[in-house]
């Protein structure tokens, strides 16, 4: 078994309204910053033991589909690195 850290990034699907990101963008603009767009995403770091990187990725992908992301709202990415 090898120790891995998986990073899961969960973001809204294209076209899904993100009121918090819009509010954050407006706040930055009020502070005088110039920007074109702002998107927000959630990131989870998961430490786990697995046979190999593929097994770690498979387990974390399952976790993401079962809980961390909502398929109606989100797309996600999983990356895995040995610790």
């Amino acid at each position, binding site marked *: 078994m090898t120790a891995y850290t998986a990073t899961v990034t969960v973001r809204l699907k294209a076209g899904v309204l993100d*009121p918090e990101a819009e509010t954050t963008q407006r706040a930055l603009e009020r502070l005088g910053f110039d920007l074109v767009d702002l998107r927000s995403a959630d990131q989870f770091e998961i430490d786990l033991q697995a046979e190999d990187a593929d097994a770690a990725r498979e387990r974390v992908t399952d976790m993401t589909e079962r*809980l961390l992301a*909502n398929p109606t709202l989100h797309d996600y990415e999983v990356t895995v690195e040995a610790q």
Partner: protein
Amino acid sequence: MTVAVIQFGGSNCDRDTVRALDTLGIDAQLVWHEDGLPADTSGIVLPGGFSYGDYLRAGAMAARSPILAEVRERAASGTPVLGICNGAQIGCEASLTPGAFTINRSARFQCERVPLRVENAETPWTSQYEAGEVLEFPIAHGEGRFEIADDRLEQLEAADRVLFRYCRPDGEVTDAANPNGSKHNVAGITGESDHVAVMMPHPERCSLSDLGGTDGQAILRTFADG
């Protein structure tokens, strides 16, 4: 025969719902989620509140608690199930109903009375209303914006699974009358079978005349037939 009002840590409309059902002469009891459903459960309410502090997404944690497997089984065998507000978020997260309720367009918590138009009056929940009738219900939510893929929403509408839409007092469905940015102003929908339903507005908060309205009684009376 009892209506199980399921309590999670953070539920806060559970007692209101039991009281409203009691007032209508319908036997109801609070059921702590770890205790499982009573054997004589004849109906189920997933009540409003902030279960698990809305961690991750509103309803996400409660939707994955073991009692939801029991709710799913009962729903499949015909027991009426109603998710109200946080219960609606839980119902969608648990796939009892399609779509998701997410952050309001305003990015703010909204607590107000709003007009609702009855879309389908041929479900167990709405059979005492007329299609097109305008009701007034309280809403109180920060994550009530109904979101779903456009093609999926078209399927739901074609199958007449929208119960209510936010509207103007005269019944016209407009963007300005949409308090939270819900797609097509959807305020409540049914599951694959119409005895399973979720809605963001609160029928239990408009079922006692002392609270300024009784438009919600007809929905809760559905449980008297269960």
